[in-house]
């Protein structure tokens, strides 16, 4: 799957985009957050407090219990501040 990171999430993890094959135990956005957090380092920092994060699945806002698959594009970012 494609994972995109924006704003301070991107800064903490050190990349804007990566492509991974989902581990078997990851079925929801929340699972993916936990999987990424366990990488440690900047990922642990970025994903340590999921309440501060928002996610989009295939370019639509998504809740953390949404189901993810290998063909999806997921993005993680802080609450938006445009306008």
């Amino acid at each position: 799957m494609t994972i995109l990171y924006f704003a301070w999430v991107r800064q903490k993890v050190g990349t804007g985009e990566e492509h991974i094959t989902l581990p078997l135990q990851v079925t929801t956005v929340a699972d993916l957050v936990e999987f990424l957090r366990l990488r440690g380092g900047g990922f642990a920092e970025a994903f340590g407090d999921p309440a501060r994060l928002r996610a989009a699945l295939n370019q639509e806002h998504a809740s953390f219990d949404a189901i993810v698959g290998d063909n999806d594009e997921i993005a993680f970012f802080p609450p938006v501040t445009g306008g």
Partner: protein
Amino acid sequence: MNIIRVQTGDFDISAECDALVHGRPDIGAIVTFTGCVRGDESLIALTLEHYPGMTEREIAKHIAEAEAHWPILGATIIHRIGRLVPGERIVLVAVGSAHREAAFRAVEFLMDYLKTQAPFWKREQRGSEANWVEARESDANAALRWRQS
């Protein structure tokens, strides 16, 4: 016709209003909102980034929602990205309608949703520090009111 643009360059409000009403003699009211970078003692610049693709989808979705709620006859939304200094324009929302009520409501609705749903992020440069702007609760509350009516 609706126009959605994300761009680094500035925009011209008059030109956008002219384009909005072009060939639409049924438009009697145009409401615009322009957001600018407010200056204070320490702000040097804002830098805006966005999620290409999702941004345009989100904006198009909210224009469609506005069209479903109010009899609007055209909408233009332009949002700038990149580095902007105090006084520079950031965003334009312009809506045309036959009578003023629809255009007023739609522009307010679209602004509330741009602030809370469109994937843009602002970073403020103050002195040698650069910090991500925190989302404001007042914007979230402003967006919520449209769900109640």
